[in-house]
């Protein structure tokens, strides 16, 4: 939504100073209906939502977590899956992103085949390999309908230097698992960004991690389930 309007800003100094607790901003992307809303809701509210609807534009959820005694705000940006939204609408929300969660539906092979397009989408928004990315295969509870096996998914994840998680936002047994996925991302961000600003300022505050660090950790987070 950048426009010349936004360049005409505004009185400096009218805002409160940035909060002291750190904020990790994570964007969640993937095809329509793969369960992005359910995953983010599950993490932030601790339960599976009764009725979710199509996400129009971008929804925002957040949760305060504690790592090593430090309170950290995890902000999840849940995006619309339909292609038309990402082309001209969602790019505003790619700014200052600290991590990306790609989601596909294990019972829908097409959603898996779309992943390269989503990865390309990120690349176009200058989110390269230095930004931590994870791959989540959702709806694992629907065992009889699985179309995307763990092997091809793991191969794909490896080829893009991402850890893979297979989970279900719905199955209560997996509750900790969804939590664990986002906590893992948060731990990774915390360990890699000891000096990160609490709040990215004016779009320039984000400091990408060094690539070598990312590559060293490649695959470490992978889990099988």
């Amino acid at each position, binding site marked *: 939504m950048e426009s010349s*309007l936004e360049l005409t800003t*505004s009185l400096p100094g009218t*805002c409160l100073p*940035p909060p002291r607790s750190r904020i990790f901003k994570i964007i969640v992307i993937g095809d*329509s209906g793969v369960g992005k809303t359910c995953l983010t809701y599950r993490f932030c509210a601790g339960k599976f939502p009764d009725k979710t609807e199509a996400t129009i*534009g971008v929804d*925002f959820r957040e949760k305060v977590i504690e790592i090593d005694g430090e309170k950290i705000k995890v902000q999840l940006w849940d995006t619309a899956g*339909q292609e038309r939204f990402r082309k*001209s*609408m969602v790019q505003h929300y790619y700014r200052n992103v600290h991590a990306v969660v790609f989601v596909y539906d294990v019972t829908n092979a097409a959603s898996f085949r779309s992943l390269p397009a989503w990865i390309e989408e990120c690349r176009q928004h200058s989110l390269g390999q230095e930004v931590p990315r994870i791959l989540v295969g959702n709806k694992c509870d629907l065992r009889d309908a699985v179309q995307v096996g763990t092997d091809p998914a793991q191969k794909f994840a490896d080829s893009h230097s991402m850890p893979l998680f297979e989970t279900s936002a719905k199955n209560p047994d997996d509750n900790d698992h969804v939590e664990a996925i986002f906590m893992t991302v948060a731990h990774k961000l915390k360990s890699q960004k000891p000096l990160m600003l609490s709040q990215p300022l004016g779009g320039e505050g984000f400091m990408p991690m060094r690539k070598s660090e990312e590559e060293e950790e490649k695959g470490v987070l992978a889990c099988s389930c």
Partner: protein
Amino acid sequence: MYLKKSKSIGASSPLNGIGKQDWNSRRKRKVGEISQALSVTPVDVAALRRMAISEGGLLTDEIRCRVWPKLLNVNTDDLPEKLAEGLRENHKDYHQVLLDVRRSLRRFPPGMPDDQREGLQEELIDIILHVLDRNPQLYYYQGYHDIVVTFLLVLGERLATVLVEKLSTHHLRDFMDPTMDNTKHILNYLMPIIERVNPEVHDFMQQAEVGTIFALSWLITWFGHVLSDFRHVVRLYDFFLACHPLMPIYFAAVIVLYREEEVLECECDMASVHHLLSQIPQDLPYEMLISRAGDLFVQFPPSELAREATQQHSQQTAASTFKDFELASAQQRPDSVLRRRRKEQAALAEQAQAQAMVVARPRAKRLIRLAVMGLTVALGAAALAVVNTALEWAPKLDLQFFP
């Protein structure tokens, strides 16, 4: 003199206990006036527009079934028979439509039996695919189903189909392009409206870099996606059907302005402000906000804002097709056009006067405008101008003041 300060105007809403008697009698009178407007030949569409905008809107779904077609200039004599079979699997948007409709449970009245709801969901899919199939230039967007379901629940399948088709080629046209560039352009009207009424809120939002996506679902579903009470949704649809296609963006601005205090108390960052604004309060004083949106439209017509809404309009926007549409529906009653023109001239003169006062002192602009316009343009009078304004006379107005 920002919007919030005059909140008490909303107290006269129909849901308020005091003045209930009064509202009942006004309601009865309104039903009579609507019947009268419907009974003349040709139908008095201008009066129906006023009724749809003014307090309480069209009151009942029975009345809506009769009036909405007139507002959209749809002939209800030759409704289509049963919709064509076999559209489904072949349509490119079938899977997306199915996915969105199947999970749109919240749009149906609570307590509706599952089988009834499922039947309606099937009809909803049929209507959407029918309209898309007949209009290959239109592209489905997530949220379109939220609009169509409202028409289905009020009008039933056959009538909903024809009205939705008309709406899709007019009011919703911009949202149904292959890309959302025009939608984005329309969202660009939001901040200029807010700036004119309350620069402080505007500056705060700019500083937070919140963008305008929080209002996207409001705009492209006509608030159907975000309001849980169906009565509020249809009340707004009355209003939007009677107005210029850009009215939903004025209404969005009015909601933000109404929440001025909350916004300014919010932490000034994108996430906090986006989160606050995207959670729409369910107890908004709708009648007051509708009248405010009408006022703002008259004061700051789209043509005046267009220079600030950065991208330029293409000729194909709904805003530009609206003129033809409006002329076509006005032809149902030619003499009303003349009457309306006269009133427009009066409104124009009034506005010109208000503008003349402020052109010299731009910083005082908002205050004076609101004072003058707020007092002099009662909604009833504004309604005609709201419906007919911008495209015909506002450009001339612009030339006058911005040579």
